[in-house]
């Protein structure tokens, strides 16, 4: 027998031998599947801000898409960034704040090498969804402005633009909006570890600095 057939045969026998006396009840979905605040509402944006800041990431609030460039410029200036990488399809208006900095364009067809990514200071991306209750921003690889996974991983500083309409209150609402067909990265604050005496310390292998520009 192949390992596959043997393992499946064992599991079939075990499933029947160990079947509970009563048929399992249907899964009770009594937990909250929508949060207290409507997607994109002022309250949900406030909650996201509070929760992201709780991870010691920074949130810059702007009212309109037109103000994103100025907020990005501020993040870059404060981090002292000189070299940037962006997904090639990052919206053009957001780039107005890049100034004279060198900008590496990345796409699946013309990918930057790992060494090139290691040589940049900051990556600027969009995001797919944000979950306010947990302070989480989700990037969908290949979706507009979100780039390959390596982009938001190797540089030490990540500036992530979140549009208000993409902000939901709860985890179930967030997952419902996501397509698992593309690789997803859920980011809740900067890289951190709790491995030394179970105390959280920010900054290990992923970006040590996370700035969220929240529009709306």
């Amino acid at each position, binding site marked *: *027998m192949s*390992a*596959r057939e*043997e393992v*499946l*045969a*064992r*599991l*079939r*026998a*075990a*499933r029947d*031998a*160990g*079947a*509970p006396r009563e048929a*399992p*009840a*249907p*899964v*009770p979905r*009594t*937990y909250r599947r929508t949060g207290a605040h409507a997607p994109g509402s002022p309250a949900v944006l406030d909650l996201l801000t509070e929760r992201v800041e709780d*991870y010691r990431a920074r949130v810059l609030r702007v009212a309109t898409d037109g103000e994103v460039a100025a907020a990005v410029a501020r993040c870059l200036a404060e981090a002292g960034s000189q070299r940037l990488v962006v997904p090639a399809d990052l919206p053009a208006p957001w780039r107005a704040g890049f100034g004279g900095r060198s900008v590496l364009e990345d796409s*699946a*067809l013309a990918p930057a090498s*790992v*060494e090139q990514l290691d040589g940049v200071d900051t990556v600027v991306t969009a995001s797919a969804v944000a979950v306010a209750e*947990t*302070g989480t921003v989700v990037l969908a*690889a290949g979706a507009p402005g979100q780039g*390959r*996974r390596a982009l938001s*991983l*190797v540089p030490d500083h990540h500036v992530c633009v979140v549009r208000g309409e993409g902000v939901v209150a709860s*985890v179930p609402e967030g*997952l419902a909006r996501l397509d*698992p067909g*593309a*690789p*997803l*990265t*859920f*980011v*809740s*604050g*900067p*890289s*951190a570890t*709790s*491995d*030394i*005496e*179970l*105390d*959280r310390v*920010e*900054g*290990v*292998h992923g970006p040590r600095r996370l700035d969220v520009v929240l529009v709306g």
Partner: protein
Amino acid sequence: MSTTDLGMPAVRDDSRDTGLPTHSPAGQGHLRGTTSFPRAARTELADTQLRRNLGKATGIIRAKRAGVVAELEDWEDLRLAGSAIKADVMARLPELLEQLEENVTARGGTVHWARDAEEANRIVTELVRATGADEVVKVKSMATQETGLNEALEAAGIAAWETDLAELIVQLGHDTPSHILVPAIHRNRSEIREIFLREMPDVDPALSDDPRALAMAARAHLRRKFLSARVAVSGANFAVADTGTLAVVESEGNGRMCLTLPRTLITLMGVEKLVPTWSDLEVFLQLLPRSSTGERMNPYTSTWTGVTPGDGPQEFHLVLLDNGRSAVLADPDGRAALHCIRCSACLNVCPVYERVGGHAYGSVYPGPIGAVLTPMLTGISGADDPNASLPYASSLCGACFDACPVRIDIPNLLVQQRAASVESHTRPTAQDLAMKAAAVAMTSAGRFRAAEKGLGLGRLLAGREGRITSLPWPASVVASHWTGARDVPAPPAETARQWWERTGGGA
């Protein structure tokens, strides 16, 4: 060949192909120590530094967990859903695995099946060899610890680099893990500093013991490895049957490095890690981070489905591991142990774990869940099997059930495993018989706590000395005198659980 009668169709102890549920074969991987729990515990208890480190760390994590759990008004609903989803997975495990295989394959991944630890190690080793690489980067994985993959790779001339900070501390310290989530929980900052100074070739000799400085040293040490690695080996927290999606939950970004940068990714996963649908993750992505690190969400969760052209590894292998899980599944009550999502909350609230640490359990799965899961995976071969004593590594106080995000009734399972342990001896002692009677009473009376009060079980287990009932070994298993090594008096007027709640465990 031997078989164990658990009141069900035979569960086998050898690896011949019979299509019957089979224990993890003896002598493979890291599911069995060399010493019985009481003997090992006595050694660990003598280590006051260890007790201090553990007491501090588990105290911090208990407080953090309580805070973020209290924040969710629907926490109990999430636990009920989590438990029911896992029960459903167990009822349909073979079908869901085939569905997972089909979806992973359709997206360009390759699925392999492993009967036991040695087979899993062989598959992974051959896959690495085929790439021509002589080293791999690894993201923390209980399954690869269980199979002893690192040693197998090393024997084949392949270096395995652990990249999780705690795993790195364990690896550099030539040590073994002592906690599911934080394998180096037994080490404090100054011990970690010493290990780094000794083992990292280009570390700054002025390195301080500030956790931030230690984390930066690890970053510098591993960065080159990440950027140049060609092959990564990972575990998985969840696999979604209906989409073929795998999920890894982590904090540091080392997981993302391993899952993203190398050309080849090999994931080893126990067959029980499934959830049926993508939306089921909405339950577990709430339960797991709050229960494990006590955070609303862990810093990074990565999900991927097969291979994505132009992004991340272009070769993906998924190895599905039995290694005793079929034997656990064959037990109608015991199969709930497979619901475990390895959050480690039960370790952090356990008064026994807090005192002896993870090494005393001998298995890679320590603490309350380890004390039941380990002997269920391996079977108990007799009174001298070190795993025979594991079900006694508990005070049955019930704190583990309350903490468990998927409501595994660990106290009840412990009692059943005690009965199984007793059955494995040829000549039962008086204590064995008392345990067996208690097990029967408790199983039929339903929830343990009710039984505990109704039967005055605490006093029954306390025995003549009037000591607390925590660790009532069958005399035939006990080689040492636990009560002589510890100093907790039996509280006459309250149960162990009430005592723990009132005092937080004393010490």
